[in-house]
């Protein structure tokens, strides 16, 4: 009897320790964000008070948010970010599907070369082409325009790669049957191939949306007017190295984070898969 229970006790003890450690790790993962949320709701004088306190008198005031709204046109900034992200998501999904379909369905000379360029662009750091892209945007008068914000993210080689992998495992009999029945290629793509590849499309959607929503470098180069700022640019607007209005920073950072977090907790599986896939992008 004891020979059976002792390992069991040890095992549940070990499991208890594992749970405790994981819980401790969870606290470290979440604490900075909880701190940010609470700080954004403190009276401005309490935000960076020492010793720091999680709960301070007067917690729950929206004064920091009102201050932040004075510095930046928050609805406009949200619109800029959302519009850019939505546009890029739609074009990326559309074009990636069409191109990936072309790459899997048809045989033509140069097909493999084209696919290889797709992989190559995923390996080259985008910083190399930053200067030429900026000069092109300037020559085409795209500085401070939505088109300028959107253009480099109009399509994604990663999306083509991802969807091609999904289309490849599709039974070709099914597609051939539809073709023999007289369906056009576009029809096959949109009413047969894409509905089956929903998982890949969701992954790409989350990946593209997150990438666009959080992108800082390109917007910081192509945009310099406050009216065209996206959310990451606006975060830095409150923030300068020497005098920082921490209340506004925390308020705006929280406002920038909460919508994404809500979406994340609803669609967490899609988020995790979509973003973990970005590992392939390098």
């Amino acid at each position: 009897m004891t020979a059976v229970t002792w390992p069991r006790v040890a095992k549940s003890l070990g499991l208890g320790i594992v749970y405790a450690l994981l819980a401790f790790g969870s606290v470290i993962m979440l604490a900075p964000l909880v701190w940010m949320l609470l700080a954004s709701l403190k009276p401005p004088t309490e935000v960076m008070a020492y010793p720091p306190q999680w709960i301070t008198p007067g917690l729950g005031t929206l004064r920091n948010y009102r201050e932040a709204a004075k510095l930046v046109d928050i609805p406009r900034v949200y619109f800029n970010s959302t519009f850019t992200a939505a546009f890029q998501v739609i074009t990326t999904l559309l074009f990636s599907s069409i191109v990936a379909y072309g790459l899997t369905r048809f045989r033509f000379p140069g097909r493999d070369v084209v696919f290889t360029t797709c992989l190559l662009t995923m390996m080259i750091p985008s910083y190399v082409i930053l200067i030429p892209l900026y000069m092109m945007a300037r020559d085409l008068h795209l500085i401070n325009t939505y088109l300028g914000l959107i253009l480099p993210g109009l399509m994604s080689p990663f999306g083509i790669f991802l969807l091609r992998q999904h289309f490849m495992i599709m039974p070709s009999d099914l597609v051939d049957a539809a073709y023999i029945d007289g369906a056009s290629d576009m029809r096959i793509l949109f009413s047969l191939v894409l509905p089956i590849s929903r998982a890949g499309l969701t992954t790409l959607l989350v990946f593209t949306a997150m990438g666009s929503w959080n992108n800082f470098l390109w917007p910081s180069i192509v945009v310099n007017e406050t009216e065209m700022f996206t959310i990451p640019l606006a975060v830095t607007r409150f923030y300068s190295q020497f005098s920082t209005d921490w209340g506004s920073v925390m308020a705006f950072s929280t406002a920038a984070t909460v919508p994404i977090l809500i979406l994340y907790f609803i669609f967490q599986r899609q988020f995790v898969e979509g973003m973990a896939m970005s590992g392939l992008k390098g």
Partner: protein
Amino acid sequence: MVTRSVRPETLTFSEKKDQFLYRHRQVVKGYAFISPYILFFLLTWLFPLVYAVWLSFHEFETLYETPRFVGLENFAMLLKDDLYIKSYGNVGRYMLVQIPLTLILSLLVALALNNLPRMRGMFRTIYFVPNVVSLTVVAVLFTSLYSPSMGLINYYLGKVGIPAQQFLNSPKQAMESIALMDVWRAVGYYAVIFLAGLQNIPGEYYEAARIDGANGLQQLLRITIPLLNPTIVLCVLLNGIWGFQVFMQPFLMTAGGPLDSTWTPVYLLYRESFQYLRLGYGAAMGLVLTVVILVVTILQRRLVEREIAY
């Protein structure tokens, strides 16, 4: 309709014609479908890349003058640019902290989660949260947490008896502090990747090992780690590639300081190109960085694969 599997010698003339048309149509349709990408690739990748190479051989100091051909002068200047060379040392220090810590912690989290009877999904969701938050927000938030005099981190260090640290204000700690922040961001990400890798290891392996009398540690070292090898290599590679490209963290948190300890290759590229408007020099920096990343990736891949090979 002619299927592709029919051998050509068994076809009649009209069938051959059909097949020719079919193949022809494949080419036309194929190119029609991929044409958006070809256009996009030429305009936003190939042309800019060629342009960057061209620029790197030119002196181009303000945006409006004509570029002047200077041959390899930009590259020669780079070799003598102490700050540029230092910037590689800085990202080296970053990677020395960030890669091993991320690797070990994310492996531990993945192993712990893999053996969990319940709440696995909940923990995975929590550990992944930092990846959802924009790096801009994270960088700004951690700047406040790292504050030497008012920051939350020094407050809790004080509670457990550790003296206050300077973090971002010290040239000895700034890069390491940034690296630790990025460990916080990356652990959940790699834990998810490792967890997927662990779940691909067949349970029979462990069963066989147990029957042979292997203990938990032996199973970990002889089965789990070797079979996770490809994933570990991927993790080290990705971290290395991203490590070289660290930019926003020092840009937002330290502005390259203190005492130039947090300049990175990409940050210098950004400064030269978009603050000093020395676009030719900036382009040369970008090309050198690309070559360095490619070379290190190849070397690292060989090295890591040999070390963990079984």
